[in-house]
């Protein structure tokens, strides 16, 4: 699964996610589809989020919207919300994977509970970084 989240100079966030699902899937399985609210979400009042991992767990925990709701209704920051969902709600039911997220204030999170995640980001100085493994 691939995805992107962005904040533009006008203060608007957006998210996009694309996938092929799992190898050998059948029966028209849509468990890895980036459903709005589970794998993909964007709301200027909270954050833009794109997810990758065991899709059916992300659906069951409404990962992307859960992160946004924690920020919007609970007042927590982006990192706190992402950590609580990826390492808490998701991991507790056995879901592996991660998210990338950006808040309207420019906060950027790339959080995962697996040994690695292909990823890249722009830091606050404008430098682009790429990484594969957790320790990168």
């Amino acid at each position, binding site marked *: 699964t691939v995805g992107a989240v962005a904040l533009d100079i006008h203060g608007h966030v957006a998210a996009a996610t694309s996938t*092929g699902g799992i190898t050998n899937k059948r029966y028209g399985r849509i468990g890895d589809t980036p459903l*709005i609210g589970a794998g993909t979400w964007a709301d200027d009042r909270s954050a833009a989020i794109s997810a990758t991992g065991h899709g059916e767990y992300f659906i069951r925990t409404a990962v992307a919207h859960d992160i946004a709701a924690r920020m919007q209704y609970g007042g927590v920051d982006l990192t706190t919300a992402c950590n609580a969902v990826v390492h808490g709600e998701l991991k507790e039911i056995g879901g592996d994977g991660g998210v990338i997220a950006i808040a309207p204030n420019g906060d950027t999170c790339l959080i995962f509970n697996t040994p690695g995640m292909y990823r890249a980001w722009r830091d606050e100085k404008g430098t682009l970084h790429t990484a594969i493994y957790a320790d990168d």
Partner: protein
Amino acid sequence: MSSPIALAIHGGAGVLKPGRLSEEDENDIHAWLHRAISAGHRILEADGDSLDAVEACVIQLEECPWFNAGYGAVFTQDGTHELDAAIMRGRDRNAGAIAGARHARQPIHAARQVMEYSDHVMLGGSGVDAFLASRGLQPVDNDFFDTPLRRQQWEEHRHSNGAMALEPTHAEGHKFG
């Protein structure tokens, strides 16, 4: 007053441990990631729209055979490809998604077409292709998305234990995401 800009992208997550990829492969992946984020970064640096930026990044990622989306997507049990994508705009929470598409050359662009030119949030299966045809987008044959690596992985799974199809494992080579 202008906002700061920010951008992040991901490929898949999973059993990625140092030593399983060659240095050459790692360098290739880093190059693809840099190419993809640069596509969106150029748009943001030019005061462009965040929706255009995320679409540009994902189109680049869909072209990379290392990642499971677009070219190089995994095989279904019947040996074809089904592609899914979603896009959402934070300004007004407008969104578009596709599921089980088979002939959409750029799945994320198809999702954006659904968002901008249909009355719906999500289309599935053959309906995606019909809608895209109505928009004048050229379909591609499903085998456009084949790669030798994905076919090999599919063959290994198909012959080793077909019953694992519905249960993603952490086995090396079993792509999920």
